[in-house]
């Protein structure tokens, strides 16, 4: 950005200099980021993405890669609405769903319509954008949080309608119509068929999704550095000031809404083709929360942030599927958290030693109290070995320990006296480990979502701007 471009004046050209320099980890990341020009990073990303499927024959891993690309594309779209324009759109997933269902209508036996893929993709993208305008134009009269609730309602309505519109009586038609297939969805969709290339395998879909991701990334990048992008940021920071400067705030908001919806619609169509089916449950609140976690974790408005965060948010839960690995990650995460929060840092060593001792004493007491208790010990292979005795009705005890450990964790963070906190940490950690072994590791899918929730709260408290987000700097 050394020379002025059309539409940028001196002040705009220098705006980078007026921003706060991120400190700590983010500062390191930013310095690495500045080592190479942006196009070089993009080239690296493209190369890595294209070469990735060649490194493995495992379709499961490639599937995860495809999911990451899909989520990143969705995240980029949401980032335009929330990150750039600052509109809290909680109905975003509905546009994704509209894309999915539109694809199902245009290419399946359900409607006996089979459009060529390129045409349906274009039509769906435009259609989703129109839906965005349709929802946006009344909603944008609403102020701030009202927009959030109306869009959240819209997202819910979409799921409910797709679930329930199975027997619709229309005037002029005798039989009730099945419009959406209900909870069983619409199945047997046509695969993607573009330019003589027909996507069959997981690998093919990975490439399709990845190429779409790159296209969307380039488009969004250029949007961000255009006049419109700057106007969006101005709008986000201070709507009143932006309007005073003559920006068409309403049109800008609608544009952000429509672009986000279009990206979501396109991703939805590709998702439907990949899955070969659409179900209402594909578009529920869990996905919305995952997407928000992605853009917030990456840092609102940051494109590399979205990419990195979608890798983290999709790949880490996949790693957690293997219970043994999940256990390792859980304990490693706990130790790292302790290391990061305990001050002075060396205290972690006596803490871990005392914790180990505490566990051994508990085991010893249990063994002494109940004869023949060696059967209670953790199954072999568990990383905690003889450290945690498991009672016969371990799930009840685990539930109790789980509640107790939540209370203890909250309590520990409130203890002011350093020494007492150190002492209180020992039983807390032990309870946590017990709850993990007895309950949390047994229900990996629920535990995973729970940790997403905790992650969101902790992230907001310690890094409200996400990993790569930039702090707002007041220029007065």
């Amino acid at each position: 950005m050394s020379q002025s471009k059309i539409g940028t004046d001196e002040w705009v050209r220098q705006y980078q200099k007026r921003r706060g320099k991120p400190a700590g980890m983010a500062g390191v990341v930013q310095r690495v980021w500045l080592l190479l020009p942006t196009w070089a990073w993009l080239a690296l990303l493209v190369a890595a993405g294209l070469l990735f499927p060649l490194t493995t024959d495992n379709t499961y891993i490639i599937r995860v890669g495809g999911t990451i690309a899909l989520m990143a594309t969705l995240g980029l779209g949401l980032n335009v609405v929330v990150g750039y324009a600052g509109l809290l759109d909680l109905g975003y997933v509905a546009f994704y769903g509209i894309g999915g269902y539109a694809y199902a209508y245009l290419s399946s036996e359900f409607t006996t319509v089979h459009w060529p893929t390129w045409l349906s993709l274009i039509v769906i993208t435009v259609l989703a954008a129109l839906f965005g305008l349709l929802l946006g134009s009344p909603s944008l009269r609403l102020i701030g949080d009202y927009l959030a609730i109306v869009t959240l309602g819209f997202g819910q309505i979409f799921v409910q309608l797709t679930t329930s519109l199975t027997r619709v009586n229309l005037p002029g038609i005798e039989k009730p119509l099945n419009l959406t297939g209900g909870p069983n969805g619409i199945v047997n969709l046509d695969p993607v068929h573009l330019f003589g290339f027909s996507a069959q395998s997981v690998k093919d879909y990975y490439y399709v999704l990845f190429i779409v991701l790159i296209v969307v990334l380039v488009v969004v990048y250029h949007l961000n550095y255009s006049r419109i992008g700057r106007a969006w940021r101005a709008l986000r920071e201070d709507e009143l000031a932006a309007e005073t400067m003559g920006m068409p705030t309403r049109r800008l908001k609608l544009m952000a809404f429509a672009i986000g919806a279009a990206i979501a619609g396109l991703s939805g169509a590709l998702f439907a083709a990949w899955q070969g089916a659409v179900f209402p449950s594909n578009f529920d609140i869990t996905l919305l929360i995952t997407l928000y976690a992605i853009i917030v974790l990456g840092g609102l408005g940051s494109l590399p942030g979205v990419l990195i965060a979608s890798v983290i948010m999709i790949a880490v839960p996949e790693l957690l599927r293997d219970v043994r690995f999940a256990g390792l990650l859980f304990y490693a995460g706990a130790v790292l958290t302790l290391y990061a929060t305990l001050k002075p840092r060396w205290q972690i060593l006596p803490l871990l030693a005392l914790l180990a001792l505490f566990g051994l004493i508990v085991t010893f007491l249990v063994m002494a109290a109940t004869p023949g208790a060696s059967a209670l010990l953790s199954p072999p292979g568990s990383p905690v070995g003889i450290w945690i005795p498991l009672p016969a009705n371990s799930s009840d005890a685990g539930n109790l320990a789980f509640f107790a450990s939540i209370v203890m964790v909250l309590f520990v963070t409130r203890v002011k006296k350093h020494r007492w906190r150190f002492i209180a940490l020992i039983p807390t950690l032990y309870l946590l480990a017990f709850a993990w072994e007895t309950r949390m590791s047994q229900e990996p899918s629920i535990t995973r979502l729970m940790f997403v929730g905790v992650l969101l709260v902790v992230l907001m408290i310690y890094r409200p701007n996400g990993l790569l987000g930039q702090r707002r700097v007041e220029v007065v």
Partner: protein
Amino acid sequence: MDLFFAQLPQQLINGLTLGAVYALIALGYSMVYGILQLLNFAHGDVYMVGAFIGYGVTVALIPESGPITSSALILALMLLAAMLGCGLLGVAIEQFAYRPLRNSPRIAPLISALGVSFFIQNAVQLTLTAQYRTYPTDQLIAPSMGFELGPARLSATRALVIVVAILLMVALQYLVRRTSLGRAMRAVAIDREAAAMMGVNIDRVIVATFFIGSALAGAAGVLTGVVFTRIWHFMGFNAGLKGFTSAVIGGIGNVPGAMLGGFLLGIIESFAVGYISSTYKDVIAFVALVIVLLVRPRGLLGARIAQKV
């Protein structure tokens, strides 16, 4: 048309019952929003926890066999336990998830609230499984008890729900209008900084608001369990949405508005169920919200606040 009028009283009773629950949820939303301008997405889950606490009390107190000695006592204990438990839960949420974010950008506490909501839902699912639980209402209140009001019937359960909800609302209105805590709450809602300068302890007012709002949500949870009997870990999401819709319809931040919005939404919904189809009740509620917001962007009783520049 005759059919419409024949059904009207019954639909009104159903609507008032549902509306009483919505209004109680809406009050917590509205009070918190009035003071912190925060959408407390976890509020619906507090309500769900309340329903489960009430259920836990019935499990603990109702003998496996034999008659129940005092169902009034059990009902009162259910309400008290749920209100106390939820109040404490609300205070804990405020302490840990919202207080550190009080001066952050607007989106931060919202995301944090989504996180808390997700955490509570999944924690409950983890420990109590995703099963539906059924309140033993029939054991507590005989289904035959009730009042015949012409063509309609007001069962004792529904009457109880409406009466309890109205009592709680009257108590709240007294608290907000007539006590010094209520005066402090209103002052903080109007201008937090000015209130602080006048010697109002902001933190204490916020904690009290969360306690009261969450306790009302807990009561709503128990009442839902008593009248609709089925509870599960995901019930909070939809109910929270409805509670918030009620608060917005009535004018968010406005206590009588939340009550009005709750009853209105309840009546609209039961009319939708009674006269159209239960499939579209949420759609109709949502459309009602959009219409109200388009006509009165600040809700029915919301004051028009001039934007300060």
